[in-house]
């Protein structure tokens, strides 16, 4: 590998997160100043409330777990050249299936088997929710951006119907607690996290991230998937059946989002609640963008956005926590807009060097 391609790859990997961090800092400072507070003390407060104590860190890790799943979901789609915006519906479907399985199993089921079955149910139903737009794209040419958005609403309405017609505990919008399949809290391993929502789903999800990386970069199927994403016509010419790869990619993508459902359902509340997935699907796009569609990049980007989200709660006393909602939008727009631009400027710079 030559120095130039190495440098280009380093840029590819580190440019977006650096831009994201800088923009978040600048925009955050401006918002903090606009409400008449000192940025330094608010940022210190934010750090103290997230990474500064075990409870805060536990909450960050909890949010990270779900974000990794929806981030991987969007990333796998994008690697195949497809935009899966259906993460929210797929996540909800996964959580719902995990809860139903946990409710159906007898309480005496050995924990390992129960968790495995619930995880499988979550992955399968998320996968099915991804397979549908995959087939719609491969067989009918229906664009996945639109179909995944529409399926979000369809899935969420269907789940809302299922919950409100009898599966719920009266006067609530959630099911009964699962009988089996609960995932232990992180505090059972590291007692300091006691009281936070963090749980061992994180380990399962990190394993899924590793597996996704292995699949994308170390297997033939992953190679085909990336080839289709880079240049579908060329891949087709090279003997790859593009339609099949699309369907497979969106199925895998949906399955990863579905897996995220276990974090809330099995690890935290132990029931399915209407609306638990709200926002995670769209934030997955931000995570994938900043994480450069790389599984480990996605993990780091999830930590970043989870910190931002938890940090909002930590500063609520002095700055409205809604500030982080603004920051999320600003960061995504800024990264999406500045990365092509910075890359273009850098490319001009390099060309200039060569011309001399």
């Amino acid at each position, binding site marked *: 590998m030559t120095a130039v391609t190495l440098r280009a790859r380093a840029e590819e990997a580190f440019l977006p997160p650096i831009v994201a961090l800088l923009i978040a800092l600048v925009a955050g400072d401006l918002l903090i100043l606009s409400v008449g507070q000192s940025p330094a003390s608010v940022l210190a407060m934010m750090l103290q409330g997230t990474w500064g104590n075990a409870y805060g860190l536990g909450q960050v890790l909890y949010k990270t777990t779900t974000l990794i799943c929806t981030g991987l979901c969007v990333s796998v789609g994008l690697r195949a050249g497809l935009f899966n915006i259906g993460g929210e519906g797929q996540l909800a479907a996964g959580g719902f299936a995990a809860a139903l399985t946990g409710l159906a199993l007898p309480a005496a089921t050995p924990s390992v088997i129960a968790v495995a079955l619930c995880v499988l149910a979550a992955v399968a139903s998320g996968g099915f929710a991804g397979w549908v737009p995959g087939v719609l794209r491969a067989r009918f040419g229906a664009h996945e951006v639109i179909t995944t958005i529409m399926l979000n609403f*369809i899935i969420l309405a*269907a789940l809302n119907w299922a919950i409100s017609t009898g599966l719920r505990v009266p006067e609530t919008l959630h099911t009964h607690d699962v009988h089996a399949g609960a995932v232990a809290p992180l505090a059972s391993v590291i007692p300091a996290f006691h009281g936070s929502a963090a749980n061992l789903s994180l380990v399962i999800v990190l394993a899924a991230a590793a597996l996704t990386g292995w699949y994308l970069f170390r297997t033939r199927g992953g190679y085909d998937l990336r080839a289709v994403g880079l240049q579908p016509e060329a891949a087709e010419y090279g003997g790859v059946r593009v339609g099949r790869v699309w369907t497979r990619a969106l199925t895998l993508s949906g399955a990863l989002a579905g897996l995220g459902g276990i974090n809330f359902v099995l690890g935290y509340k132990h029931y399915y609640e209407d609306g638990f997935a709200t926002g995670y699907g769209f934030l997955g*796009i931000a995570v994938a963008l900043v994480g450069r569609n790389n599984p480990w990049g996605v993990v780091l980007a999830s930590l970043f956005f989870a910190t931002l989200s938890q940090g909002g709660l930590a500063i609520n006393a002095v700055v409205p926590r809604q500030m982080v*909602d603004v920051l999320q939008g600003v960061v995504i727009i800024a990264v999406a807009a500045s990365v092509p631009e910075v890359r273009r400027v850098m490319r001009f710079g390099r060309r200039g060097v060569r011309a001399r």
Partner: protein
Amino acid sequence: MIIAFLAQTIRIAIPYLFAAAGGTVAERSGIISLTLEGFMLTGAFTAALGSWYSGSPWVGVLCAVAGGVVFGMIHAVATIRFRANQVVCGVAINLLAIGVTRFFLELAFDSASNSPRVPGFSAGVGADGGAAARSGSALPGLFHNPLIPIGLLAIPLVAWVLYRTPFGLRVRAVGEHPEAAATLGVPVHRVRYMAVAVSGALAATGGAYLALDQHQFTDGMSAGRGFIALAAMILGGWDPMRAGVACLFFAAAEALQIDLQGTQALASQFVQMIPYVLTIVALMGLVGKAVAPAALGKEEA
């Protein structure tokens, strides 16, 4: 009964009509309109804000238009000038609208959920519990709110602009074949900026209708209506008049569901699904394929 049903349908359809009219203009110029939801939410908030501080709902409408144009320009500058991916940026605009409206709701009205009662156009649900909307006297009541006739006119107006004016021809040209349009001297970027601004202004007016009809802004008030308008636009094959018919159809289904609510004949959730299911069916090409503008979402002319 029939008249009340029609009146209810039109009331529900107005925000869809505004947003679908706007979305059609932007998409025909080649810019994806996932942003309609965010534009509407922004418009609803700035309308409430303007109406609250000035005491006049018309100032509220102007503020909505301004808010929609500002958000449209953020989207346009990011995607056209800086070539940000239109889907990513569209999603981000929606998130930004949620964030900005919540942030300033907290700052301006010290509330996380809603604004106080602001001056609006109709009697509103607060005064009579919405009884007028359901009673037979609703049809004349439609014209208490001037945004209703304006909304009904927005669709034919956009159709006329798109098909009968030089600007419309340019919009369609840059949406189908920007290189060819540029060769003929059409300023592709400028046309797209204007198209996105128009879509922001129209969708935001739809949002203003929501806020001024209910005399307040509530958090997340657009509630997916921007996506229903998007669905109507696709179902209408990117033609404004047909998109308008789709809006009215979706609204009629909702009005019917409200009428049937007491009878339990049909779960509301399944009525909510109708626009989305129909859109997927339309994209599958089972009932005459919906074909998007050729340059929609493509980077750089």
